């Protein structure tokens, strides 16, 4: 999944004989088989356990984890699933929500059950940032902060001297509640990067925020109501903090409501996982927890009919069902009101329709709804833009880049730019395609310290302009048929001179052989 497409992120990486699945998401735009990744690429009928060494989930958005219970419980995978603590906490709630909408509301059968979500979560191993997790003797993974949403992480996967970095979704500019993504110069062989905003370089965030506040303020001033459809977690908190501080500063009185349910719980998660937010919030949380809002109160259905201005955050974000749609219907007829769409809307949803300018909507029961209220779109998605992606490539210094999670045309543009600027290979496989990178790892061998020191002692500092030639003998043990260069990272290779090995058992033997051969003469 996610090949030249946004949705159902699912990438299989084979590295040094290990297979790792990166993310396991669903697609918002489909309701048929295409909503989940196509696991038949891996195996037709059998379980995935024997093909996959582990599964890594980058963050809790459903397009990155929505197919997880399906994969682990219905297709079958018993190995470890890695994710960060906040992801582990929030992921099952969103999965359950998704299941409820699909099964209970749309009445689908053949979908994963609550129990399956629970069983699936039992296979999850939580990881901390920068912790090196040894999946098995050879495979290790390490998480880096990605900033996109609470608990979002980038993962480095390493086998021997080969490594891959998968970014998941990330954001290179810190915002009001999260920090910026960061990675060290780990020089992976492949960097798998999202490219949602491959061609956009967004205007400054401050401008967007000012714009947003101005629009909300104006509407409220003239007595209108503002509806902001959001998903429970992520941008909602960002916008809440924005409005909260604005209300504080301007001393505004109009009520702000937050539709209950998930969101209240969500704010609680933010409070408990404060270490994952940005510097400022972490520093001040004892005096004032940013997620304890003064002006923002829980919403009740009956409030929608209250007279006077108000601002309401309601779920879901694309106006396709639930409370946000309910309120939208009530308020759409009044031109004083406004709806602000803060994120991406998938085709077919009410959100997408009104954004494309439709003024008359067909609702269920052949009713039409006339949209008189103002419709605004404002991008607050926390994805890296083209500048951010280039910045990350500069940070990590990969040997090649692979783009996913974006539209093909935009990827093409970014691919060219990357190839030009960094002169490294850049891939953008479609779903089902395989991109292969040949790595050329060095061979680690052991060298006797005395030999190395002797060589190093010849000059005060090694001078790269005057390379020194050294001689030694390479000893390959255990597997004579194995070419030294054939396998990376074997400890079987041993390097030393006869003299330095003389006190070791094997060394002694070799030494014997070697000296025997050296013709020496006296006289």
């Amino acid at each position: 999944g996610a090949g030249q497409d946004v949705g159902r992120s699912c990438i299989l990486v084979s590295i040094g004989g290990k297979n790792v699945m990166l993310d396991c998401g669903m697609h918002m735009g489909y309701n048929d088989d295409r909503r989940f990744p196509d696991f038949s690429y891996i195996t037709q009928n059998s379980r995935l356990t024997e093909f996959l060494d582990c599964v890594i989930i980058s963050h809790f958005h459903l397009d990155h984890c929505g197919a997880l219970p399906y994969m682990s419980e219905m297709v079958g995978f018993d190995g470890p699933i890695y994710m960060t603590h906040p992801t582990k906490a929030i992921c099952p709630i969103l999965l359950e929500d998704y299941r409820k909408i699909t099964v209970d509301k749309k009445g689908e059968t053949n979908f994963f059950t609550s129990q399956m979500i629970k069983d699936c979560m039992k296979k999850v191993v939580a990881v901390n940032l920068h912790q090196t997790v040894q999946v098995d003797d050879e495979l290790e993974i390490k998480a880096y902060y990605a900033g996109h949403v609470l608990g979002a992480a980038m993962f480095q996967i390493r086998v021997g001297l080969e490594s891959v970095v998968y970014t998941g979704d990330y954001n290179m500019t810190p915002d009001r509640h999260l920090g910026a993504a960061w990675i060290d110069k780990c020089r992976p062989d492949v960097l798998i990067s999202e490219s949602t905003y491959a061609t956009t370089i967004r205007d400054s965030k401050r401008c967007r925020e000012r714009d947003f506040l101005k629009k909300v303020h104006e509407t409220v001033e003239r007595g209108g109501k503002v509806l902001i459809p959001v998903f429970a977690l992520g941008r909602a908190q960002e916008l809440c903090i924005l409005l909260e501080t604005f209300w504080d500063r301007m001393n505004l009185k109009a009520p702000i409501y937050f539709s209950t349910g998930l969101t209240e719980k969500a704010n609680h998660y933010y409070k408990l996982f404060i270490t994952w937010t940005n510097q400022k919030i972490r520093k001040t949380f004892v005096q004032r927890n940013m997620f304890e809002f003064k002006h923002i109160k829980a919403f009740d259905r009956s409030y929608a009919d209250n007279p006077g201005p108000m601002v309401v955050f309601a779920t879901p974000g694309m106006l396709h069902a639930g409370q946000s749609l309910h309120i939208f219907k009530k308020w759409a007829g009044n031109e004083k009101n406004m709806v602000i769409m803060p994120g991406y809307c998938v085709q077919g949803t009410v959100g997408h329709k009104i954004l494309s300018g439709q003024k008359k909507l067909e609702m269920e029961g052949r009713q039409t709804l006339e949209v008189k209220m103002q419709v605004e779109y404002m991008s607050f998605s926390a994805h890296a833009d083209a500048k951010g992606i280039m910045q990350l490539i500069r940070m990590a210094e990969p040997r090649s880049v692979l783009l996913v999670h974006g539209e093909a045309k935009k990827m093409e543009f970014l691919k060219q730019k990357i190839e030009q600027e960094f002169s490294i290979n850049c891939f953008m496989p479609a779903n089902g395609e395989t991109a292969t990178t040949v790595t050329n790892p060095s061979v680690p061998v052991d060298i006797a310290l005395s030999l190395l020191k002797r060589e190093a002692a010849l000059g005060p500092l090694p001078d790269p302009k005057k390379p020194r030639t050294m001689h030694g003998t390479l000893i390959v043990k255990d597997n004579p048929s194995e070419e030294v260069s054939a396998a990376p990272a074997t400890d079987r290779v041993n390097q030393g001179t006869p003299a330095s090995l003389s006190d070791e058992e094997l060394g002694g033997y070799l030494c014997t052989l070697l000296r025997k051969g050296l013709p020496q003469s006296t006289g």
Partner: protein
Amino acid sequence: MKLYCLSGHPTLPCNVLKFKSTTIMLDCGLDMTSALNFLPLPLVHSPRLAKLPGWVSKDGNTFLEKELKECAGRVFVDSLPEFCLPERELLDLSTIDVILISNYHCMMALPYITEHTGFTGTVYATEPTLQIGRLLMEELVNFIERVPKAQSATCWKNKEIQRLLPAPLKDTVEVSTWKSCYTMQEVNSALSKVQLVGYSQKIELFGAVQITPLSSGYSLGSSNWIIQSHYEKVSYVSGSSLLTTHPQPMDQSSLKNSDVLILTGLTQIPTANPDGMLGEFCSNLAMTVRTGGNVLVPCYSSGVIYDLLECLYQFIDSASLTTIPFYFISPVANSSLEFSQIFAEWLCHNKQSKVYLPEPPFPHAELIQTNKLKHYPSVHGDFSNDFKQPCVVFTGHPSLRFGDVVHFMELWGKSSINTIIFTEPDFSYLEALAPYQPLAMKCVYCPIDTRLNFIQVSKLLKEVQPLHVVCPEQYVRPPPAQSHRSDLMLDCQPPTMPYRRCSVLSLPFRRRYERIELLPELADSLVPSEIKPGISVATVTAVLHTKDNKHVLRPTLKLAPAPPPSKKRKRVLEEPPEHRAPKPLLSGAVPIEQFLATLQKHGITEVKVEDTPDGHILHLQDEDTLIQLEEDSTHIICDNNEILRATLRDLVLRFLQKF
């Protein structure tokens, strides 16, 4: 490899490890027991303390009257308390590259080291260690700075004068290194040098050494450290616990295969069982409050207090103590309680799963919500309005020399219905109480020290099997008060290497190998030949590149497949690197029968063969030449007959493999 021991306190260690050209300081503990020699700093003027008589020496000399005061037969220094610093003369502390912190109690001397020794390196600690360590330092500075003292006593420190003082002042050592407390500015500057790390994170130091913190189970974010290169491994175990309290359990398996294990921070009260003590704590507390008395618990503002509060949370309902107010008084009380709730990743499994619900991991959140537990920055302000007796007060400092606890000692000390319960093991409770004598208040000693005891340690050592164990000398003999208890000491094989303050230990291992990388092109060009089943050998001629302590072998320029950029090439041509082919190495045995036959073919017939333990000596009688064939050498001894020698050499070479 050397270990410099800068602290003699076994639970507040400070050691410096020199390993592979890096200098690593392990912990930075501050020995605060020295404060026990000072008079308490009262928050509110205390007539009792002010009226204490000055000390007069036996010969009636009164020159120290102002500096030293006498209370219940003991002499105390009337000055701001001072602390015993790690040794600073043993080695140049400005050469330290990094400081590794294992837990927040072991970093209290950090500002003294980072701010006053020319230190330019990095400090590594986990996030909870940094945050809670900062709180403890802030609290300490606050305790001391809010009661300024006009004079500071220095005369008594003079060696000549100190000799004349009564015990224990006479016997205190290192008095000259004692220093008064640092300032908040120094704390901030010291902590700005901290780099945060997570458990199992691998950190490269200069490419030479890799360090990794591991969970140690003792407190929030507490860690043991692995310091290793490709071939050597040193484990630093400090303040570890196997009990299930709030922190993440200890990671033991990663300590396996250590060459050296440095063991510090074992339990200070090996005879007390923490669970039993907790029970005793609760029952004593209940008894006192039921009779209308107040309970004073001197404690640190983080750590065991979380467990105490959790224990009380379960206990107060069953003991029907719901109406008794609990007060937690410290300048950092609020921060400590808040911080404890946000470190889910560092908590034990049980508490972690609470956060997933989402619920606060510690039940003291509920105690605060229901108003059973109240916290105040000090006894001044809001507290004096809300204060109701009987009550339970948690406050610092456990030494009873400064902090709000001094106020409560003066307030409640005279009544026998009140109780003080000691839970922190760092200070002797008798010494802590000395300046308050005579005291009517009941004293209960329930030290709760969750660190490893000797049984757990010996089991641990058996499991992880280090080649050598280094530990403070206190651990290799029974405690002085219980000299018959041979079970209260470390007894392991191989024998431990004990250290004391100012020891310099040479750690017994020889480094023999180093990791080097062959570039793939070079590896491709090698042709190993098998000389014995399972063993192949190839000669390597290559250029050694060393950068950031990483060694890489590259093909010599002749072999380089891709020509280097033209500009570079010119220079190389101008000054070609010294390059000579190495002599081929030979191997194999000379089969004696066939060798004789060959000699015969070349007209050498008169050969006397003599067997020696190592091989054969061939005496070529006509030529007056000896050929010694031994297992690892061949000598041809002939007199100035170069032609013959060459012939014989070539004959020997025929039987040997070249590579």
